[in-house]
C-alpha cells in the first residue's frame, strides 16, 4: 500500500522525525478559505498524488501571500498531473497539503528499502539529495551509501554515527540526524514497509533538520496486523481494481483493448506479453486464482467488461487441479450471466481438455477456441481490430 505524503508525515511525527509546520490538508469540495494561515509565510502548497516529479508538473507551489496560497489551493484541487512516472496517465489531485515553506541549504537523500538479496532492510543515503535515487545511481553511484539494518535491533547507535559522518552532517544537527536515522529504520520495521523515503531531508538556512517529503510503501501481505493502515483509503488502485480486490480477483487496468482472464500470475503476465507479440495490447492483467469456479469466472467477466475499451476477451486457463470440463461449464454459465457482447476467445489446456472443448463447442455460444496461447492471442487481436 502506498501512502500519501501527509499520511507518511503523520507517521514521521509520531516517531519524532521533524517535519514542517502543517496548516492543513484540504480535500476536493472543501473551501480553500478555511485554511488558517497565520504567520508571515511563505507557505508551500503540495498536491497529494502518488508519483514523483510532481513539482515539475505544477504540483508544488510556494505562496508568498495568503491570497496566493488560497489561489494555489483552489487551482490545484481537481488538477490533472502527468509526470515521467505516471506513464502517460493523468492523476487527479484530490487532496492538497499546506505547510510552512522551508529554505533548504543542503538536501540529503535517505531511505530504507528491503534488500532482496540480503533479505534484510538497508539504509540507502546520499549527501546529494533532491534528485531521484535512480538517477543518482546511474550518474554518480559512488555517492550512494548503504548500511544494513538489523531486523530486530534496528539501526544501532554506532551505525547511525557512521552514517552521519559519511554524510558529513554538521555538528549542530548530528544528534538530531542519528535519532532520525534510527527512527526511520524503526518506522520501516514497525509498519512492515517495503520503502520509507525522505527526499529531500533538508538542513535549512536556520540550521534545522527537516523531512521535506515522505514516501512510505507498505507490504500488502502484512496488512492483517496493521488495522490502522487497512482502514486507510487505497489511493493507488482505480475503481475497477478496488472492486476486483473486494471479490478476491487480482486485476490491474492497462491501456489496450483485449480483456484477459488467466489463472495464475505468471501465466497472466505471459498472456499479456503474447498478446503484444501478436500485435495487440491487453486491457488488463487479471488472475482469477487457482480454483477458477463459476462464481469467480462470472465476477472476472463482469470486472473485465466494466472497462469500455475492451473489444474482445481472451480467456487462457491451464486446468490443473481444476479440470477443463468444469472450467468450460463455468465459462458457459458465466458468459450468459455477464451478458457478454464482445467476441470471446478461449484457450483451455490441461486435464479433460477434450471434454472441455466439446462443452464450449456444443454450448451454442459465439466463441472461438484456440489450441495454443499464441493462436488465441492472434485470434483475439484480429477480433479486437
Amino acid at each position: 500500500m502506498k501512502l500519501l505524503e501527509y499520511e507518511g508525515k503523520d507517521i514521521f511525527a509520531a516517531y519524532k522525525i521533524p517535519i514542517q509546520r502543517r496548516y492543513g490538508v484540504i480535500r476536493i469540495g472543501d473551501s480553500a478559505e478555511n485554511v488558517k494561515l497565520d504567520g508571515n509565510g511563505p507557505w508551500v502548497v503540495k498536491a497529494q498524488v502518488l508519483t514523483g516529479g510532481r513539482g515539475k508538473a505544477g504540483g508544488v507551489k510556494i505562496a508568498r501571500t495568503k491570497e496566493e496560497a488560497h489561489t494555489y489551493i483552489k487551482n490545484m484541487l481537481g488538477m490533472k498531473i502527468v509526470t515521467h512516472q505516471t506513464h502517460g496517465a493523468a492523476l487527479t489531485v484530490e487532496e492538497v497539503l499546506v505547510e510552512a515553506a522551508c529554505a533548504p541549504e543542503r538536501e540529503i537523500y535517505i531511505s530504507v528499502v528491503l534488500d532482496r538479496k540480503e533479505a534484510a532492510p538497508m539504509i540507502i543515503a546520499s549527501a546529494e539529495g533532491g534528485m531521484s535515487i535512480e538517477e543518482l545511481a546511474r550518474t554518480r553511484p559512488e555517492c550512494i551509501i548503504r548500511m544494513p539494518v538489523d531486523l530486530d535491533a534496528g539501526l544501532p547507535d554506532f551505525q547511525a554515527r557512521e552514517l552521519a559522518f559519511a554524510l558529513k552532517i554538521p555538528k549542530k544537527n548530528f544528534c538530531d540526524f542519528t535519532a532520525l536515522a534510527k527512527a526511520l529504520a524503526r518506522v520501516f520495521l514497525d509498519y512492515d514497509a517495503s520503502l520509507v523515503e525522505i527526499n529531500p531531508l533538508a538542513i535549512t538556512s536556520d540550521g534545522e533538520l527537516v523531512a521535506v517529503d515522505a514516501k512510505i510503501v507498505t507490504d500488502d501481505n502484512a496488512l492483517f496486523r496493521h488495522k490502522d493502515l487497512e482502514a486507510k483509503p487505497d489511493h493507488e488502485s482505480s475503481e475497477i481494481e478496488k472492486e476486483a480486490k473486494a471479490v478476491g480477483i487480482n486485476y490491474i487496468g492497462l491501456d489496450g483493448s483485449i480483456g484477459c482472464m488467466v489463472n495464475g500470475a505468471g501465466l497472466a503476465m505471459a498472456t499479456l506479453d503474447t498478446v503484444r507479440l501478436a500485435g495487440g495490447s491487453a486491457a488488463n492483467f487479471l488472475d482469477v486464482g487457482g480454483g477458477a469456479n463459476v462464481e469467480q469466472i462470472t465476477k472476472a467477466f463482469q470486472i473485465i467488461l466494466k472497462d469500455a475499451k475492451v473489444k474482445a476477451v481472451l480467456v487462457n486457463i491451464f486446468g490443473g487441479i481444476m479440470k477443463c470440463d468444469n472450467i468450460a461449464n463455468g465459462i458457459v454459465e458465466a458468459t450468459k450471466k455477464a451478458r457478454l457482447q464482445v467476441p470471446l476467445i478461449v484457450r483451455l489446456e490441461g486435464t479433460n481438455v477434450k471434454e472441455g472443448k466439446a462443452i464450449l463447442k456444443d454450448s451454442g455460444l459465439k466463441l472461438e477456441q484456440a489450441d495454443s496461447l499464441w493462436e488465441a492471442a492472434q485470434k483475439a487481436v484480429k477480433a479486437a481490430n
Partner: protein
Amino acid sequence: MSILLNKDSKILVHGMTGAQGSFHSRLCLEYGCNIVAGMTPGKGGTRHFDIPVFNTVKEAVRETGADTSLIFVPPPFAADSILEAAEAGIKLIICITEGIPVLDMARVKKRLRFLELEGRGVTLVGPNCPGVITPGECKAGIMPGYIHKKGHVGIVSRSGTLTYEAVWQLTSQGLGQSTVVGIGGDPVQGMNFVDVLKMFEADQDTSAVVMIGEIGGSAEEDAARFIKARMTKPVFSFIAGRTAPPGRRMGHAGAIVEGASGTHASKVEALENAGVTVVENLSLMGETVAAGLKPKAKAGKKS
C-alpha cells in the same frame, strides 16, 4: 537420480487437516508420495487419511523419521511453521503458502543462516510456490501430477501455472522432466535460481534445464552469471512480464519493476550473453527445447 525429492522422501504435511492441506495431501498420496505424518497443533493423536497427526514437528520427526516438510499453513502462521520444521531437524522444507509478510520471511532467512553456521543447515523451497515434483517418484506440492513425465529436463520457475504450461509443452514433445522446482514469486525466498541450477548441473539424470523467470529483482541476472561461469548443460529460458507497467505489483509480490532494476530487457540480455536460449513466444517453449536438444542427441549416438 533427481534433485531434492525422490521415492524415499518422508513427507510431513503442516496443516494436513485444513481444507487446502487435506485436498492437496490426497492428490499427493494418489500420486504415490510417501506422506508419513501430518502436523496440526491440537489434533495430535488423531489420524487423517490413516496417517498419524502430531501436535508438533519434533514429535512427528521422532515418531516417523520425517525428513521433508510440506507447508499449507495460513500466511500469518507460515513463517513460524518453517522455523518449527527447521529447528526440529527437517532437511527440506517446501512452503506453498502465498501471502506471507516479507519481513517474516526475512526473519526466517536470518534464522536459517544462523542454523547453517551451526551446522544445522536446511533447504527451503518457496514460499508462494507450487512445490517440487520428481515425476514418477514423488510429488510434494499443488501441481497437477499427470502433466509430468519422467525424463531428463530439469525445470526451475518463479511461477505456478506458467510452469505447468512449460511442463505440458515439454511432455507433449515427448520430453520428460528430472525434477521440477517452483521457487516461488516472493521477493524473499528460500532457494533461488542459482541454488537449483547448481543441483541440476551436478545431477547425472538432468541433461538440460528450463528456467522460467519474471520481472522484478535480480535473480535471473545472478543466474546468468552462474550459467556463464559454471553451467555445461544447455539452459532454455522464458521471462514473463515484458509488457508489465513499471511500479505495479503483477500478482506476485516479487514481480515489480522498481526504477531501472528488474526489467525484462536486462534479464533477457544477461541470459542471452550467458548463452541461454531465451524463448520470446511462450507457445514455442516445447518446440524450442526439443529442437535445441536434437543435435546433441544425434552427436551422442555417433560417438
